């Protein structure tokens, strides 16, 4: 049996609105879009113009500094528009889906019979490469480097997160095919982090480790830190469960199939459940008619409530997300809110009555519940990060732009999601994830 690692630090935030284990297949949406902004640090170069007709798998844009990394159309059709923001930055490439546009044909083969280079080429050309992210920094992996290992977490402990044991049903063989392809890309192992009662425990060609504990135990970064922590110079690649399925399908069918199961969750959703849709689908196609009627504002989030992106109904799902969360915006004043008993106020501290009811589920909104302050309270962050790292000191090193200290204090080991709980729990409402990304960007800029 695999090794079991118990993690004590962390916090499960129990929210109302987890998805029921029911799947509804949605028709393909009329439009899909890729958003270059989903990739931190990417400078996109367009390959298509408006009105061009593309097949599914045709490149839409590429990485200026790694031209071999392509970003391809999830569905065939016509490029309706390229939406730009300030300074002509590309925000969205929108495609009007049309099934008759067809597919690009890729090699259909058992990955175990292919060489490393063949697999790499196929992933790059088909636009599946960007699903591989590298640690340090949590950016798209570079095709020129070889990772020590590839790590995959098969469970998500974030609030209301999708259950991959449910998502994977009927697709285990495809997952195995994807794993076999990935195994060729590293001289090390493919590491699979599983939880208790996991359907992934029978996957072959991998090293399995079981993790028990509260969030963020399901974060791949935490799993890496507790098995073989990253040192300077080490490179590990990570990939999400559903993205392994994309790779599996590519090799099984020779076509790109970006269909993905997305959990629609949150207290503002009438019946939270799973929907099968496609990468880059419009948010509206997922939520229309499924939210509660409300006379207050609602916040729609692509992703989970800790790390997701705020989106509008006319936006598109983000590239890596398997979850949409909808919560109340909470943009209203609350009378003496800081002094109430707080039966409905979840807190990482025990200063509210709610801490007497550990099993209760909460409806939390996006209000900050306080003004931003300097670091005052100590010891809060340390309780929430199950790694051998000093979060506050690392953040302070970033704030003073001390590159040596950032490196010494372990910036290579973390990405935003690993510190997201700190930001949630912070008394001083410090923007932890923003600061951390700022530090990572500095490191990329200074050290490459």
């Amino acid at each position, binding site marked *: 049996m695999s090794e079991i690692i118990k993690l004590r630090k962390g916090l499960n935030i129990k929210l109302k609105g987890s998805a029921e284990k029911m799947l509804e297949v949605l028709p393909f949406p009329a439009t899909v879009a890729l958003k270059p902004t989903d990739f931190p640090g990417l400078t996109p170069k367009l390959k298509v113009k408006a009105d061009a007709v593309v097949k599914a798998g045709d490149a839409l844009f590429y990485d200026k500094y790694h031209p071999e990394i392509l970003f391809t159309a999830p569905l065939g059709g016509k490029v309706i528009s390229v939406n730009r923001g300030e300074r002509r930055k590309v925000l969205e490439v929108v495609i009007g889906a049309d099934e008759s546009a067809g597919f690009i044909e890729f090699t259909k083969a058992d990955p175990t019979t292919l060489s490393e280079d063949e697999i790499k080429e196929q992933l790059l050309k088909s636009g599946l490469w960007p699903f591989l992210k590298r640690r340090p920094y949590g950016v798209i992996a570079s095709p020129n480097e070889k990772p020590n290992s590839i790590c995959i977490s098969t469970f998500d402990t974030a609030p209301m997160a999708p259950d991959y044991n449910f998502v994977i049903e009927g697709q285990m063989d495809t997952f195995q095919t994807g794993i076999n392809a990935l195994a060729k890309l590293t001289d090390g192992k493919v590491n699979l982090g599983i939880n208790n009662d996991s359907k992934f425990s029978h996957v072959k060609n991998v090293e399995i480790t079981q993790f028990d504990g509260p969030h963020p135990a399901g974060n791949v970064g935490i799993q890496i830190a507790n098995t073989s922590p990253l040192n300077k110079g080490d490179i590990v690649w990570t990939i999400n469960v559903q993205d392994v399925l994309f790779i599996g399908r590519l090799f099984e069918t020779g076509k790109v199939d970006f269909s993905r199961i997305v959990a629609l969750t949150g207290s503002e959703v009438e019946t939270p459940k799973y929907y099968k849709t496609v990468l880059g689908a419009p948010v509206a196609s997922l939520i229309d008619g499924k939210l509660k009627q409300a006379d207050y504002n609602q916040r729609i989030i692509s992703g989970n409530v800790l790390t997701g992106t705020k989106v509008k109904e006319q936006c598109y799902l983000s590239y890596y997300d398997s979850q949409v969360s909808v919560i109340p915006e909470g*943009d209203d004043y*609350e009378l003496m809110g*800081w002094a109430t008993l707080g039966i409905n106020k979840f807190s990482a501290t025990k200063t509210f009555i709610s801490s007497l009811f550990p099993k209760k589920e909460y409806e939390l909104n996006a209000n900050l519940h306080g003004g931003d302050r300097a670091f*005052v309270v*100590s010891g809060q962050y340390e309780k929430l990060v199950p790694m051998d790292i000093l979060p506050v000191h690392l953040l302070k090193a970033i704030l003073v732009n001390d590159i040596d200290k950032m490196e010494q204090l372990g910036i290579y080991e973390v990405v935003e999601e690993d510190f997201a709980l700190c930001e949630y729990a912070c008394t001083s409402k410090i*923007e932890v994830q923003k600061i951390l990304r700022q530090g990572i960007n500095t490191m990329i800029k200074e050290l490459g």
Partner: protein
Amino acid sequence: MKFIKNFFVKTEPLVQKGAKFYWLHSVHEGFFSLFFVQKDTSKSGTHIHDFIDLKRTMGVVVLALVPAILFGMYNTGLQHFLAIGEAATTGFFEMFLYGLIKVLPVIAVSYIVGLGIEFVFAQQRGHGIHEGFLVSGILIPLVMPIETPLWMIAVATAFAVILGKEVFGGTGMNIWNPALIARAFLFFAYPAQMSGESVWVALKDGDKLVDGFSGATPMAQAAAGNIDNFSVADAFFGFIPGSIGETSTLAILLGAVVLIVTGIGSWKIMVSTIAGGAVMGLILNIFAGSAGLSPEVATYFSLPFWQHLILGGFMFGAIFMATDPVSAAQTEKGKWIYGFLIGILAIIIRVLNPAFPEGMMLAILLMNTFAPLVDHYVVNANIKKRLKRASA
């Protein structure tokens, strides 16, 4: 309550930059956010935030101080009536009322002076009013002898807030605990008024004192070699002269329970400080029989170690002062070292240096100074571990 909200919402444009009342911006924001949690929502990062904020954190600490405050008021009355020999004939409420009347002006002066300065600095710097002084403002009165003149409280508070805190950048940036800075300032600037036997008990001219009344605190008496002049129970429950809030170990421990249960105060610092005090007390006990000690010192050496913990400001310091998260060590391992050294130093200063009967204040200020050093070594240990891992 709607009219309060409307008032603040309506006056908001008047205090914006460029408007007529911009100089009231921070005050407006401060009071508005006191009455109403603001409507700001998350702009980056996590979409949900904990309901805890600095107001509630400070609120919990003030709540934890309530037993000590109330007891301090009662004890002020009690000590007064004991001194004039009318304790037996005076009721509980009369004593409490006497203390209330004596203590309230001290609290008021501390808050008015401190918050006034905070308002000015917040406005100058263009940021919101930070809540740190909510706690400092009540700690300052509690560590003062009752007969400290109000003008001295005002001067000390101003000194503490400006030079102890604002020059470093305000709440969260200070090196020393502001309340202890206020106390230390008075101790060194006005030694004549702040020590001796007349400041600890509230008396007015013409009060007729009972025979044998000294007014000295057990600390001072112990330093003089008279460790038997008070009963252990009195010291634990707090029926002894001393600074307003520090006498009752019981009331302080009630506060400690609040701080530990809510997780606001660091139990690690509390436990390690008490452990440090006890260990040093034991060490002194061992050397109590050594030759060459004067008889007073030798008796003080032989004070049972646990009695040190219930005397003077030790417990108050350990629970409410050492645990100030800003001036304490910030790393979890550092907190153990920091607290333990406070305990050791407090007893050393208290017993071995008769000029400073209250060692706790100095011990905490000293360790505040060294807390960054302690943290430095803890952080370096983490760095070294990471380097070692890389080269292994």
